[in-house]
């Protein structure tokens, strides 16, 4: 009986999506209510069933095997699902006011609920097919919501500066364009994911998560025998890397900021982009367990090093872009990808540690922290952008005096992001950096630490410019009021929570971290050793110093200045380089899109029009009409002629018969 209740976790939001289409005006309330229930069920799941628990029933038959549709309820999915549902709930409340009276109201709420349902389905999936269904559902919803204002009329909804080119490639993006970009890039990653599911099925004959886990050593050995282990792992996680906007797939997340701010908070900060992290957290323990039993240390270490380095590169690269950026939401978007880079670092480093679960947990915890603070920041950004009617930070100033509560919420979230103790962002980032250092990969550590400095710098650059800096006369006179309470309280709550979560996070004797940690890694089917979480004072000192340095320098520079005038042309070039996102977008367009377009137009011109079209629409009609005109002359109504043709035809048949028979019998 209780199983059916569990299905409501993702079933209710899905139902709300459908109901919302019927009861258009009540859609937000249905959504909020169902997500609230989802959150309650999700959070109370450990009390309802004995975790870990699987509930499933036969779904369809694939190649002679039954695929089951079901939910896997273990420590990881409960924590992840509850955070997702909770943040979604607050964002839904925020959206009620934020999207009030929007022309795409019904569509918005449909995809909002559908997204939450898909995301929870993804988190609680018991096998890869179910996971893929949720996975693609979130992609679809993300596409629709990024392009929510698909008419592209309002330039305030765009990303990038209109008229700006980098290497000859336009650097401004409309909502409709961004939606497609997001869809294409994430789906490109899914090619690898789906291919890998096929490989996995071929090798092990199972796609269920528990099935994979029980045969993990068998799978590793079989793949390794053909030298396919590393390619398989890279393909298998390609979807995760693309979804979580890791380099080289990060471009889609940046332009996804064309969607409503609530969506940026929900999909592009707190939930969907973390699906890749969840995916790795789900499968990394199996690999670790399998590796120890099989003894293939080096092959697997290549994969984990790859994860660690990609994470570090993303963390550093995107943070550096955020330093030069001028758009508030864009800064947050870079920051999101960069923070997820840290999570990937933690997962990559786990392999090299004595107790890998600590590093894995650091990533999970960083997901929770970032869900809290980044959602708060995006929602606050939405309010700020509405009030100042501009998406550029250069058009905002002195917001503290007029939006005090928003400023406090944003400050709390910023401190957490910057990694200042005792905020939650500090604990997990430090733990990740420590793990990276202990893994022995110095490059990753240095990139991560530099990223931490940049993180503190860019977020306090934005904070100082927007809230503290007095700005010029015109900006001061702009009429700006505190956000509506329905919008304010969700992000204020989240800002407060990122402080509280941090305060209770760590005590040498236990704390919140130890609770969640032991819940996740004892209530799982993979049994990995756990150890108490400890911090080394020297590493903590380095992180805190680096963060404070970034914070204070940003504050000092931007307290009274709107922007820094760069005198040297090299530095100006560097700023352009960072502003144009390391020219990666331009390189992609030049390398893939323009060349494909060129190829396509070539095909269109020479093959399509030149051959096929010409053949079908010129040559055939000419031939048919010509032949028809000739044959038509027979038909003149002269019965004698008709008779002649009839007899001639019969004669021809006789001749054919004669020839056939003669040929046969000589």
């Amino acid at each position: 009986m209780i199983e059916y209740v569990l299905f409501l976790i993702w079933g209710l939001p899905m139902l709300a999506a459908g109901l919302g289409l019927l009861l258009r005006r009540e859609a937000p309330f249905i959504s909020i209510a169902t997500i609230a229930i989802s959150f309650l069920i999700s959070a109370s799941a450990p009390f309802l069933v004995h975790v870990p628990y699987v509930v499933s029933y036969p779904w369809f038959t694939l190649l002679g095997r039954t695929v089951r549709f079901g939910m896997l309820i273990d420590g990881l999915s409960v924590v992840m699902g509850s955070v997702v549902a909770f943040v979604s709930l607050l964002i839904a409340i925020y959206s009620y006011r934020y999207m009030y009276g929007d022309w795409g109201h019904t569509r918005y709420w449909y995809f909002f609920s559908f997204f939450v349902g898909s995301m929870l389905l993804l988190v609680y999936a018991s096998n890869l097919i179910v996971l893929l269904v949720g996975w693609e559902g979130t992609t679809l919803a993300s596409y629709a919501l990024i392009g929510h204002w698909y008419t592209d009329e309002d330039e305030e909804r765009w990303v990038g500066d209109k008229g700006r080119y980098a290497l000859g490639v336009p650097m401004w993006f409309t909502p409709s364009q961004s939606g497609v970009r997001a869809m294409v890039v994430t789906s490109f990653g899914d090619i690898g994911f789906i291919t890998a599911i096929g490989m996995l099925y071929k090798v092990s004959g199972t796609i269920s998560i528990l099935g994979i886990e029980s045969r993990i050593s068998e799978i590793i050995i079989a793949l390794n025998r053909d030298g396919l282990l590393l390619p398989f792992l890279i393909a298998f996680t390609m979807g995760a890397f693309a979804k979580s906007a890791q380099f080289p797939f990060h471009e889609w997340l940046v332009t996804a900021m064309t969607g409503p701010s609530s969506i940026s908070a929900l999909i592009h900060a707190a939930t969907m982009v973390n699906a890749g992290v969840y995916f790795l957290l789900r499968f990394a323990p199996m690999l670790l367990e399998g590796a120890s039993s099989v003894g293939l240390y080096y092959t697997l270490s290549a994969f984990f090093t790859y994860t660690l380095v990609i994470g570090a590169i993303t963390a550093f690269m995107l943070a550096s872009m955020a330093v030069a950026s001028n758009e508030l939401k864009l800064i947050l978007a870079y920051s999101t990808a960069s923070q997820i880079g840290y999570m990937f670092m933690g997962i990559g480093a786990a392999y090299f540690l004595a107790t890998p679960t600590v590093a894995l947990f650091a990533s999970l915890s960083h997901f929770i922290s970032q869900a809290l603070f980044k959602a708060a920041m995006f929602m606050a950004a939405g309010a700020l952008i509405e009030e100042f009617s501009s998406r550029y930070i250069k058009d905002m100033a002195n917001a503290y005096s007029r939006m005090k509560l928003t400023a406090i919420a944003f400050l709390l979230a910023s401190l957490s992001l910057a990694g200042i103790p005792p905020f939650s962002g500090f604990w997990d980032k430090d733990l990740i950096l420590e793990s990276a250092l202990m893994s022995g990969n110095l490059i990753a550590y240095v990139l991560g630490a530099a990223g931490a400095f940049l993180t503190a710098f860019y977020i306090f650059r934005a904070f100082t410019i927007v809230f503290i800096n007095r700005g010029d006369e015109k900006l001061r006179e702009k009429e700006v009021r505190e956000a509506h309470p329905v919008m304010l309280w969700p992000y204020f709550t989240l800002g407060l929570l990122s402080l509280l979560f941090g305060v209770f996070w760590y005590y040498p004797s236990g704390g919140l971290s130890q609770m969640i940690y032991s819940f996740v890694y004892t209530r799982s089917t993979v049994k990995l050793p756990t150890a108490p979480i400890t911090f080394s004072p020297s590493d903590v000192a380095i992180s805190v110093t680096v963060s404070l340095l970034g914070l204070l320098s940003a504050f000092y520079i931007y307290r009274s200045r709107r922007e820094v005038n760069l005198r040297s042309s090299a530095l100006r070039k560097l700023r352009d380089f960072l502003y144009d996102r390391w020219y990666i977008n331009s390189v992609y367009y030049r390398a893939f899109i323009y060349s494909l377009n060129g190829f396509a137009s070539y095909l269109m011109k020479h093959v399509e029009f030149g051959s096929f079209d010409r053949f079908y629409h010129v040559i055939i009609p000419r031939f048919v009409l010509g032949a028809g005109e000739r044959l038509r002359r027979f038909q003149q109504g002269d019965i004698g002629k008709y008779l002649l043709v009839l007899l001639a035809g019969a004669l021809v048949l006789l001749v054919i018969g004669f020839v056939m028979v003669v040929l046969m019998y000589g």
Partner: protein
Amino acid sequence: MVEPILIIIGALVVVSLGAPFLGKRASAYCAPMAFTLILAYTLYALIAMHGLGRIKGIAPNELSYVVLLVSLLAGALISFSVNRIGRGSGIAVSLISSGTLANFVLSSTLNPFYIISAWGLLSVSSYGMAAIPKDRVSLGNSLKYAFMGGLSFQLLLLGFVLYYSFLGITPGLPMVIGAALLVAAVGFKIGIVPFHMWLPDVYGTSDPVAVSVLSSMMKLGPIVLLVNLFMTGAELLEPAQRNAILAFLMILSLITMTWGNVTAAVQRDVQRMLAYSSISHVGFMLMAITTIIASYIYSVSPYLAYMALFVYLFSYSISKAGAFSYMKAFSVRTYDAIKGAGRAYGDVSGMFSVSLLNLLGLPPLLGFWAKLFVFMAAANPKITPFFVGQVPWYTLVGIINSVISAFYYVRVLQSLYSASQPSASFQGLRTTIIASSAILILGGVLLPLIFL
């Protein structure tokens, strides 16, 4: 216990004899009802008694069931619009009924005497149908038709003598000559090139309602007769004789479909275009028949080929019935004259478009499945003459022809939906056009559900 077959034949005879006495009004109500009742009874008998039973010499098989059902359905549909013919509507109903009877008998017997008498009945019904409007053109056409028909009747007789006399007795030529003459005779009846010369004149210029009867019903019996004759004789045939027959049919089917298509493409009159397209469709049906015989020779399951023929007969007859009835609404039937009809008469023209698209073979209409089955059956790699290497040339020629046909069907649509104000009267025609197209849509949707 009376055999259902007797009841059906009796009912058809009663309708044939009674209809001429009914007035114009009464025939408009009674005729569709009568045909529908007989149709319903036939279906009931088929389902409840698993067949229609048999009487001496007349043994219906699946093919003749299809012929009977399609004839009755087409008859019921067309009899809704016979009033438009004018004073002879009662006679028209009578001729439809006797044509149905002739078709049924022709398709369910191998007894030459039955065949010859049914052939005569069918011919008389056809000539009568063509002559009903009693104007100069119709009478001229009917005369032409009758004259050519008489000639083909002689070929049939001669063919029978040779085919039956030498079947299984003497190897070699005489039987093949008989087969060739039979093909020529049947070919005349159904419009196989080069025995088709009468057809464009009759179909293209006679009264469209009469033509809708001729084109949709009056071919079914002879087509099935062709299959029956060769399939029944098949085990008695020498390999050379079989191959000769296969060669006849293959060549004729290709010439027929191509000739019909190519000439249809250059017509300026929609009714004449439909007449030529009938020829081309006979080519496709002949392709199905060829495939049936080839399946037998190369020991392949002929199931799909039979299915193809069934569905093709059905789809072709029903859509021709609707399409020709539509033409009746216009006094001038050129492409220019029907311009704008799609806008002025939205409902019927839409359904007419469905008929055309069905003839073209567009999914999800029934015509699509018909063509698909024909092509699939013919593309069986075990039937070696249909292949050059790996290339199913026979199917390919069919597909290319089907593509060419898009040219003239779509041209009609283009005319229909361009801006103009045509004058037309759909009084009394609506039911036939709409019901026939509705059946095509329904059939197209249901068929895959039933058979796939």
